[in-house]
């Protein structure tokens, strides 16, 4: 019944109260075929907090984000977003999250504006054109708004991706290595945008290979190693030296 209410276009989704955990994961396990990728991952994240998800390549970071984004289903355990189960209430959860993964979340043969308008209609947003215009200006793409995404630079495409992720005013933003392949200026602009959102109270989970930046820009850190949680706690309690020790001799990660 609740799914029905939420899929109706004229009812806006209200973010969870500040005290409530936006994300909870309990014993999340994921196997691809028979190979375990995530093993017994449990954590929770309060509203308005930012979580850095760290770990070497193949540690299960992307898989964890995909489970939370309803793009993959857990083999065991469960996870909720604002109290909604990622499997049972998938379509409600999809309204609550913005997800920017490795692949561009937009269509190359549409313009930036057309992309945002298309996704606004997919979410049943009544004020699509206004929101698209606002976001395009905010991410600095007004001049490129009517060009095909195919002609965008990597940084421009990534900013459009972020605009797409924020379009439906999600309660939780999931970012998978948002700064990969960007030059320094683009990274600066991206982080400025993200920080502004975080100030506004958006709960965020992001992965990165920039360990130092990851710790600095988050309230909490979760470190995965071989699909297991090896550290979960406040980012301030974690130093770069600790991280190096946690990573052990494993390859991956720019230290």
């Amino acid at each position, binding site marked *: 019944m609740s799914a029905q209410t939420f899929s109706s276009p004229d009812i806006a989704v209200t973010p969870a109260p500040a005290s409530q955990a936006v994300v909870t994961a309990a014993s999340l*396990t994921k*196997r691809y*075929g*028979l*190979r*375990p990728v995530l*093993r017994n991952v449990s954590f929770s994240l309060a509203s308005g907090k930012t979580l850095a998800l760290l770990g070497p390549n193949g540690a299960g970071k992307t898989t964890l984000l995909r489970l939370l984004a309803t793009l993959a289903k857990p083999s*065991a355990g469960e996870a909720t977003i604002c109290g909604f189960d990622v499997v049972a209430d998938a379509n409600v959860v999809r309204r609550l999250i913005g997800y920017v993964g490795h692949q561009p979340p937009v269509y190359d043969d549409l313009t930036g504006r057309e992309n945002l308008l298309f996704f606004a209609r997919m979410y049943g947003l009544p004020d699509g054109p206004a929101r698209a215009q606002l976001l395009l200006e905010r991410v600095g793409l007004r001049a490129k708004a009517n060009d095909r995404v195919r002609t965008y630079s990597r940084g421009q495409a990534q900013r459009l991706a972020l605009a797409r992720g924020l379009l439906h005013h999600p309660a939780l933003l999931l970012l998978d290595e948002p700064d990969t392949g960007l030059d320094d200026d683009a990274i600066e602009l991206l982080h400025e945008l993200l920080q502004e959102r975080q100030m506004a109270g958006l709960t965020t989970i992001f992965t990165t290979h920039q360990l130092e930046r990851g710790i600095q820009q988050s309230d909490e850190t979760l470190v995965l190693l*071989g699909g297991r949680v090896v550290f979960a706690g406040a980012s301030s309690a974690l130093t770069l030296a600790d991280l190096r020790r946690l990573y052990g001799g494993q390859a991956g990660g720019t230290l």
Partner: protein
Amino acid sequence: MRVASSPPVTSAGSSPGGILSSGWFRPVRQYGEYVLGGATVIGMLVTIWAALIYSPREVNGDFQRIVYVHVPVAWVAFLAFFVVFCASILFLWRKDERWDRLAWASAEVGVIFTTLTLITGSLWGKAFWGAWWVWDARLTTTLILWFIYVAYLLLRSYTGRSPSGARAAAVLGIIGFIDVPIVYESVNWWNTLHPQQLVVEDQLPAQMLVALLIAVVTFTLLFAFLLIQLYKLYTLKAAAEELRARVESE
């Protein structure tokens, strides 16, 4: 520590043998297939006797006796695809990969028996209609069935043992089977413009009926035997992959 923390993949679902590997079921599991195999061999001998000696000689000659192979083989082919259909639905519903293995095994047996159906049907056709092939509804439907399930096996070989491949195959296993009666009806209607020699099925002598029944039962036993063997083979393959994955992930 490693053993204790290894993921609980050795559930009843994925271990070879599954629930049958423990408890009082063990004797059935251990000797059941020998009994089945033995029954099949004896049944085959009885079938040969019934088909060649017991059943009376037809007016059409000894060639008529091919029906004792053709009919049971065709029956098994359809039975096999019905098993694929049911197992595919159960797999999509219960998400238990044992159903997927059963569907795969049954499809392989089904394709072999469909091929035999086409060959024996064609031999029979040559003897009685004077042509290797006629576009009769039953024959044509069998041929299309063969195409559908060869494509099924091809799809499985292209996608390998992946979850998405298993789901895709299940979808084809369901749609293919639903299509069969529609294909049959359409070919039947199509034939109204091309009148074929109609096979008037006279009242069969009781002895022929008995022989036919023996053959059908025997071939059904053979199907069950082959299905179990193939299913066990796939289960062992999955177990081997599981062990390899566990070794690699440590």
